[in-house]
């Protein structure tokens, strides 16, 4: 009988003991868990978090299906973390200012990937420091210039060859001093600048195509290789999926956005309209748009087009870098993208 009880004890210890130990360890673990699933299956769970300023917030990030990523918008305190399926990863965040922060998925996880966003409410005693992305200190340039983002801006231009900044630089024409400032370029469309140049007497010996080269040179002067490199990376990670790697609006989700295929449903059941992604290599479309307008579209998103709003995600510097990079699809810059 003694042996029988020993046997029973052994079986129960191995079965109940193991299981109970596992469940207890699970119950005792109080780490806050954030699950990531494809947006159609729920996206972030939870999608709102609270924290206190200057107190660390530890999260365990768990993917329930495919590869996701985690990052905090408009911030470089936390580099993007990959969340591999079945491999939870822990991170600790520290916010020094109260306010509302956005966390978002950084790896494409389907056509609705960009809808995967959540907010962290950071409370603190000193509300004067509040980070409030809905009302930034300086409003974006398009608002200050009063640009209507939704107004048509296509122009009828006859660009026979792709404008080249290198050729533009070689023309050595005395450009009007005001045009050399970055602020001037950002506030004007290439077409406006080209028209102004056309009326400048000093430029009269130059052909129309030469003038476009000069415009390309101006645009190149207004940015830096570093900014273009940043822009190239942001574009590859966030934009190429719809707008295509060559900017031609032919990314892998383009057909679905244009409603040409039902293979990949975009925002099923959400009732959102989508249109074909913009072709950045189309001069008629690009030459009539000012950098401020593109910058504004990135920040706000395209209402009713399927274009996400990136205002809560990118810093202003990043948005400008991306805007600068978009011109490389229209203009030839002396910039060589380096792959990391």
């Amino acid at each position, binding site marked *: 009988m003694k042996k029988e009880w020993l046997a029973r004890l052994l*079986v129960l210890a*191995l*079965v109940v003991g193991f299981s109970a130990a596992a469940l207890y360890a*699970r119950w005792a673990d109080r780490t806050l868990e954030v699950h990531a699933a494809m947006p159609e299956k729920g996206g972030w769970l939870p999608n709102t978090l609270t924290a206190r300023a200057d107190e660390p917030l530890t999260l365990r990030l768990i993917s329930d299906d495919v590869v996701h990523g985690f990052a905090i918008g408009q911030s470089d305190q936390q580099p993007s973390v990959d969340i591999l399926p079945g491999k939870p990863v822990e991170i600790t965040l520290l916010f020094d200012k109260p306010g509302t922060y956005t966390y978002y998925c950084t790896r494409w996880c389907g056509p609705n990937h960009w809808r995967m966003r959540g907010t962290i409410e950071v409370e603190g005693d000193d509300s004067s420091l509040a980070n409030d992305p809905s009302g930034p200190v300086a409003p974006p340039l398009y608002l200050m210039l009063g640009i209507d983002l939704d107004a048509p801006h296509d122009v009828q231009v006859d660009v026979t060859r792709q404008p080249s900044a290198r050729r533009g630089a070689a023309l050595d024409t005395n450009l009007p001093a005001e045009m050399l400032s970055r602020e001037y370029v950002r506030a004007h469309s290439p077409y406006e600048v080209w028209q102004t140049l056309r009326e400048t007497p000093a430029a009269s010996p130059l052909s129309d195509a030469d003038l476009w080269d000069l415009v390309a040179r101006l645009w190149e002067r207004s940015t830096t290789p570093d900014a273009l490199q940043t822009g190239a990376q942001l574009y590859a990670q966030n934009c190429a999926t719809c707008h295509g790697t060559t900017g031609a609006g032919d990314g892998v989700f383009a057909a679905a956005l244009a409603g040409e295929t039902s293979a990949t449903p975009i925002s099923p059941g959400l009732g959102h309209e989508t249109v074909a992604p913009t072709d950045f290599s189309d001069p008629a479309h690009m030459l009539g748009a000012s950098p401020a307008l593109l910058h504004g579209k990135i920040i706000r998103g395209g209402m009713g087009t399927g274009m996400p709003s990136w205002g809560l995600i990118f810093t202003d510097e990043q948005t400008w870098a991306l805007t600068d990079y978009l011109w490389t699809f229209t203009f030839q810059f002396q910039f060589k993208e380096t792959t990391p």
Partner: protein
Amino acid sequence: MPKYDLLRIPLLRKTLESRWPQLILRAAALGGFAIAILAGLLGTRVGNHNFAIVVVWIAWWAALMLLAVPLLGRGWCAICPIPMPGEWLQNGAALGPVQDGSRHGRSLKRFPKSFRNIWMQNVAFTLLALFSAVILTRPSVTGWILLGMLLVAVGASLVYERRTFCRYICPVGGFIGLYSQLAPLELRVVDTKICAAHKEKSCYRGNAEGYGCPWDVFPGGLAVNTNCGLCMECLRTCEYDNIALNLRAPGADLDPPHGLKLDEAYKAFIMLGSALVYSAVMLGPWGALKTAAYSIGSPAWWGYALGLLVLIWGLLPGLFYLTTRAAQALAPVRLPPRKLFARYAAALIPLGLTAWIAFSISFVFANISYLWPVLSDPFGWGWDLFGTAGAGWTPYLSLAVPMLQVVVLLGGLFWSGRTAAKIAAEQGARRHVWPVTGFNTLVTIGLLWLLVG
């Protein structure tokens, strides 16, 4: 070929007579089983990082198909944890007979006669095959199925005597039994005359030393491995030390071959057919087929289900039936067609096992590296028990796998051919061997095309 009785090794005899080693192994397996159920129901939804999927369908399956069945036959059944809770309740003891093992099953019923065959196991395995794409990949489904098997086993033990679940219901038990005939190991009696003269038949009825055969088998009458679960109760109950555990030539049960019953013959076709289907669905390059098998209830899935059912229950047995009719036409024998069909189905046993080994080699070596992270983090909760949670996925031996598959399959075909030749010679109709072996060769070529094509 001579046989060698392993029980002549005193240490091994002691180890097998004692209930403790077996109990410890089974208890550990039951602990693992409980963890698998918990992981399936509560752990990560990502199958390839969940203990339930990786340990059951990759590690356990590999151990079963690549080692246990070919080498030990029903060796797994000897330590299988699933019937354990039911047996505890049935016997009122976890270890051994508290008073007298012959009281075992007194008030319990025998399983109804019409179900004392493996048709239920055939159906159960077919059902698993129909839903396999989901069962094999979704932890919660695996969790519920494991729990369900445990509950059915407990229920069967409370209503019916002995290991009714194992013998007549378990979806895995049927094919383990069929293929255990190939094992180089058998439990038999040393001298059948002693058994015939022994009135008490304590090996079947039980005594103070142990229970009557849980598998409802009289060891003195054992001719093939199929229904012997290697549980060693008869070794404990035999009053004459008349039990032998023989090392033997592999496949001795097929030499000379015993005719199969129709349910067993069908099991052979179900296994052969599902090896073909699994190879196509899981290892083939056809994405639409995978999606069809996965999207239960969709029209595509109904197509897959119909195809599977027709192939394994109709087409393969039908073709084989025609094959045996052709054999009959070549060399008439006085045997009803059904009997001839079942008799030659024994020739499919070696090919069936090697088909499953060849199929398993492929996905086991490709995916066994998922085991290392899962051992450290069984539930996908972010644990790292042994420091291997971060180990990445790497297919092993990807260059050697196709050659191994070819060698194994050809070995099976050769073995099946020899078996067919023996059956044909036994019938006195040697020409029968050609259509039967031709059928096997066609199936083998199909498998080769799917696995290494």
